[in-house]
């Protein structure tokens, strides 16, 4: 399923206009993105949580060529499925 299909389903199941379902889904995703951008955790009960991991940069070596490469520091979000989602998938 992709985002537009998700919006359509939200619109149908709640009997709300497509435009409103678009606002709901976009605001939901944007709130999570904004929070992660600020480095905050996100916790959605029953679904899962996101947290940001920060990696320092380092100088590595390309194992194939032996060349030295600089790996830049990076921040990446991590998702952990919640208990309810895990149980739902496995029942």
């Amino acid at each position: 399923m992709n985002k537009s299909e998700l919006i359509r389903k939200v619109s149908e199941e709640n009997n709300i206009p497509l435009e409103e379902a678009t606002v709901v889904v976009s605001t939901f995703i944007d709130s999570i993105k904004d929070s992660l951008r600020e480095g905050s955790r996100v916790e959605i009960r029953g679904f899962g949580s996101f947290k940001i991991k920060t990696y320092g940069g380092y100088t590595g070596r390309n194992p194939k060529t032996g060349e030295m490469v600089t790996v830049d520091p990076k921040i990446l979000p991590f998702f952990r499925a919640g208990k309810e989602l895990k149980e739902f998938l496995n029942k």
Partner: protein
Amino acid sequence: MSDKTLTKAEIVDAIYEKTNRNRAEVKNIVESLLKIMKQAIKKDHALLISGFGKFEAYDKQARKGRNPQTDETITLPPRKVVVFRLSRKFRAELNQQ
């Protein structure tokens, strides 16, 4: 890095500000959205949200495990797990200087 945690209630508030519905209605719509997301992950094994990422479900084989407390050998059952793959666009946004 902040200590703040974004919760479902705050997401409901953000949506409430943008619609003409009361909080209870917005809460129900958000619960329905989460249910649809979960069903999509289960049924399609993937939920793709462009500009954010992709939730993927995959099967893990049964494997032998051990209870570290009793040293007992147990067989962990096969199960489905979910991973989140970050979109390149969002990854770039998070890492821009």
